[in-house]
């Protein structure tokens, strides 16, 4: 059961990362671009199992 929950969790992390990267590419506001880059970093670090 624990392993299934963990897999779902990593799927969620991947989904949120993808949405953030999509928003980064779509937005035309430079402040939102900077914000998105900062926000996506911890998600990617977790997704790649670095932190």
């Amino acid at each position, binding site marked *: 059961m*624990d392993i299934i*929950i*963990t897999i779902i*969790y990593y799927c969620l992390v991947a989904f949120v990362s993808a949405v953030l990267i999509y928003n*980064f*590419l779509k937005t*035309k506001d*430079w402040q939102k*671009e*900077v914000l998105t*880059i*900062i926000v*996506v*970093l911890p998600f*990617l*670090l*977790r997704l*790649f*199992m*670095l*932190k």
Partner: protein
Amino acid sequence: MTPLIRKLILGFAGLALLVLSGISFYQSRRLKEPVVVSDGVTQVVTLSKYFSGIEGTANDCNIYILEGKEPGATFCILGGTHPEEPAGRLAAWIFAENAVLQKGRLIVVLSANRSATTVTRVGGAYPPDFAIPTSWGEQEFRLGDRWSNPLDQWPDPEVYIHYPSGQYLAYVDVRNLNRCWPGRANGTLTERTTYAFMEMITAEKVDLVIDLHEAELQYPVISTIVTHEKAQDLAAMVSMTLTDMEGFKMGMEFSPKNLHGLSHREIGDHSDAASLLFEAPEPFLDATRGKTTREQLLTGKDDFVVKAGKHGLLFEKIDSSGWPIDKRVGRHTSSILQTMASWSEMHPEKPLVCDSIPRYADVVARGLGRYLRNPAQARPGRIWYE
């Protein structure tokens, strides 16, 4: 600047941050800590020898076994239950690198929750590692955290329900090794780790388990031995002798019967072994501390904690000299040696006699680094890594 160029610049900046921070986290998680085992170490095995369910995980830690020439009692020293309480790990390190048993057996664990040694507290601004000066250079250690690494066990539940008591505990303590005893074979990584230790305690016929810790000065359970009722007489004798003879105060407290998951309660309840937990003071853990630096960790000096003491908020004394790591480690080595001596007096048919370990005064006078051995001079087959 066109939006495309701006996005490219920001994207590369983010990628650079990801790579640099990723390398830093990766390296600190894998920092190798050498252990040059003493001549008294007769076997080194891994925890999975006792429970295969832990094999290949971050918590399949090394178990150092020392055997005396004559039979006697078997003690187990657990270091690294909470790695961010380094005096416990370092005291166990001194035993693994220096101890020679005359009578009985000693099982030493340096990274009881190895996963927790590979992460630091989120938002705590902890340094990832620290170094102890020695005559041959510095030896680096991972600092670690109180809880298993979220990379090894995640997510946490809303409420942690302890097994087998059913008691509700704080959600984060589902990754706290000292809230997961006695564990279960099909549980979380942390529960499987304590289960494996319980299997080890049974298989090796351990008589006494000593779990080494440190505590913040604002926590009432400090400078004390917490004892299961099986070891009350022993703990009382050790507490009185240390306070009278060693130059530092050591109290004694009973393990609460209705507080579950802790080593001093569950090991005694679920095995033939008795269990003790030792606490030394560590200002680094205090909520009112100043900068969370390596220097603060090792010197135990902190003006803010001293100020808290002046306002009567502490349960242990502190002044401008702080609580250096040598004092904290020395308290643990003396406490263990005194436990062995008092045990042997109370159980002459089953003694435990250990040589070559410094007492409190020796560690304070000569420094902890004096008792760490140079890995460059280790004989083949006598060096291991945590």
